[in-house]
């Protein structure tokens, strides 16, 4: 039977505050274990939490960016469970009055725009980290992460494929990065994703039994993990068996989802309002302030780029995916005299290739937008060829030098001088009479061959446009002496 997949995602995001949510310990990542803790985050008896204002600022910004309705009276609750990484044996979270509800984001998959509902977004504290040592009988706990502020973003079960789930997560990541509330690094755990997955026969209204898939913590594995779980459920349903509601995790090594706990062991969290924390009232002014600090968001910027710069949707999507990249593009466009599409070609091609190979972000790129524009202008006015430009650009990327300096140092100025080019062409043609004959007999490939020879002879500096004209003229006029 054919099934429709129903997916909802739960995403945890660490907020980029300097201190923890309820105490002044540092949130810095990658420090020595158990060196960023105090009596409050360790859950010592008698301590009292005090809420970090910036956590509310950031959560509010995120809720607004995700088009949520803001609960202007919001409070914290205790979620009770025993786990070694949770020293208080309860997590301070939000239950029935989360900061935001009923939001949405728009994603584009295969050219089709889909609106994905956001059920809720709430604030909570992170738990500690379990380190699995080689010793098979014990685990170690690092409590540095305990109390790091999180927001949890829960989507509606609106996603219908692994690709949509991945796109939703990507869009969410881009938005959160734009509004500067998190560094959203999956590899450092500041963005974490769990998925609820169920199948139902096409046309059926009610949902099938879902399983929760934990720890889909890389963009590479999210779609894969969901695909494997879909296949597992399909096999069960097709053979007349039932899917049981349970929690599973995707094992990257075996490429399978494995059972973590079944519903019988499911937690009963006994939420109740935390008596140590008072209500947070978010005034209209506070909301206004948050809205004023909001930059233009990726989806809106994408549409503006398509209109202002005549970029195809694909290009606009990639370039506006990152705020810094979009800024680089716009700064370049200001100084560049040609069509903006040329910039997007270079940004998505050579620039991104070099950034990826060096594992760098645009923010630590040595090439400035001004230099990028002046290099593109040099191609535009014929000073260098597109081919030479690649060499120049690589050098700019490595050294941060201006394109003009590199061209002068390496003698890379394009040769457009007719007499100089004619000299090279004559020499090349004179060496291969057979190909000249081929050309005159109508073999157009021979032209490409000579073109290549001229380029090689000139060290790539010959102006291809001029050579093309001269070559055709010369080849046609050449008299072969038998």
């Amino acid at each position, binding site marked *: 039977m054919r099934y429709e997949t129903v997916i909802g995602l739960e995403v945890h995001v660490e907020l980029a505050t300097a201190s923890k949510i309820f105490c002044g310990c540092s949130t810095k990542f990658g420090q020595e274990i158990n060196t960023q803790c105090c009596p409050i985050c360790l859950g010592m008896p008698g301590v009292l939490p*005090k809420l970090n204002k910036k956590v509310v600022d950031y959560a509010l910004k995120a809720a607004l960016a995700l088009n949520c309705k803001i609960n202007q009276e919001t409070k914290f609750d205790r979620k009770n469970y025993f786990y070694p990484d949770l020293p208080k044996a309860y997590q301070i979270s939000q239950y029935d009055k989360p900061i935001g509800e009923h939001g949405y984001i728009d994603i584009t998959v295969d050219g089709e725009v889909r609106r994905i509902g956001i059920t809720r977004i709430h604030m909570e504290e992170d738990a500690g980290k379990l380190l699995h040592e080689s010793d098979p*009988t014990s*685990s170690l706990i*690092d409590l540095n992460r305990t109390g790091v502020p999180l927001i949890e973003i829960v989507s509606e079960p609106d996603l219908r494929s692994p690709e949509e789930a991945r796109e939703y997560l990507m869009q969410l990541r881009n938005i959160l990065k734009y509004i500067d509330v998190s560094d959203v690094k999956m590899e450092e755990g500041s963005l974490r994703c769990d998925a609820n997955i169920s199948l139902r026969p096409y046309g059926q209204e009610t949902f099938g039994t879902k399983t929760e898939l934990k720890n889909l913590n890389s963009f590479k594995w999210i779609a894969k993990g969901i695909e494997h779980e879909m296949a597992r459920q399909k096999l069960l349903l097709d053979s007349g068996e039932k899917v049981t509601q349970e929690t599973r995790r995707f094992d990257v090594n075996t490429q399978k989802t494995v059972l973590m706990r079944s519903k019988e062991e499911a937690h009963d969290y006994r939420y109740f309002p935390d008596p140590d924390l*008072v209500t947070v009232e978010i005034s209209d002014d506070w909301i206004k302030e948050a809205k004023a600090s909001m930059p233009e968001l990726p989806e809106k910027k994408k549409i503006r780029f398509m209109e202002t710069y005549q970029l195809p949707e694909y290009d606009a999507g990639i370039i506006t995916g990152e705020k810094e990249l979009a800024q680089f593009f716009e700064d370049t466009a200001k100084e560049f005299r040609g069509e903006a599409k040329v910039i997007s070609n270079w940004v998505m091609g050579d620039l991104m290739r070099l950034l990826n190979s060096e594992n760098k972000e645009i923010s630590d790129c040595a090439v400035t937008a001004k230099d990028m524009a002046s290099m593109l202008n040099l191609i535009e006015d014929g000073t260098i060829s597109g081919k030479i430009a690649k060499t120049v650009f690589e050098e700019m990327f490595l050294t941060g030098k201006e394109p003009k300096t590199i061209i002068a140092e390496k003698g890379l100025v394009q040769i457009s001088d007719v007499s100089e080019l004619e000299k090279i062409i004559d020499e090349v043609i004179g060496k291969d009479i057979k190909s000249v004959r081929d050309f005159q007999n109508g073999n157009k490939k021979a032209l490409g061959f000579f073109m290549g020879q001229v380029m090689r002879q000139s060290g790539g500096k010959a102006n291809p446009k001029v050579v093309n004209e001269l070559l055709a003229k010369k080849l046609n006029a050449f008299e072969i002496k038998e």
Partner: protein
Amino acid sequence: MKVTMETVEHTAKLARLKFTEEEKTAFLGAMNDVLNYAELLNELDTENIEPTSHPVPLKNALREDKVWDYTLSREDVLKNAPAEESGGFKVPKIIES
């Protein structure tokens, strides 16, 4: 609402506590007594009253996002640890995460 034996056992399990049958029966009575007493509140009309989440009428007790000096040394952090290793709290192996 009436507390059943299952509720007592479930509550004990959630708290990781084990009781004898005798103790469970005692808890069954005690828990019902507590709830029956709380039932008294139902005599009040609370139709137009917002649920109270906190008895103190305070709002927005907030602090600035500043790192403070009260962070403990690792030695102090681990002082109460039943066992430690390589600077971490050592616990029996946990498989799920």
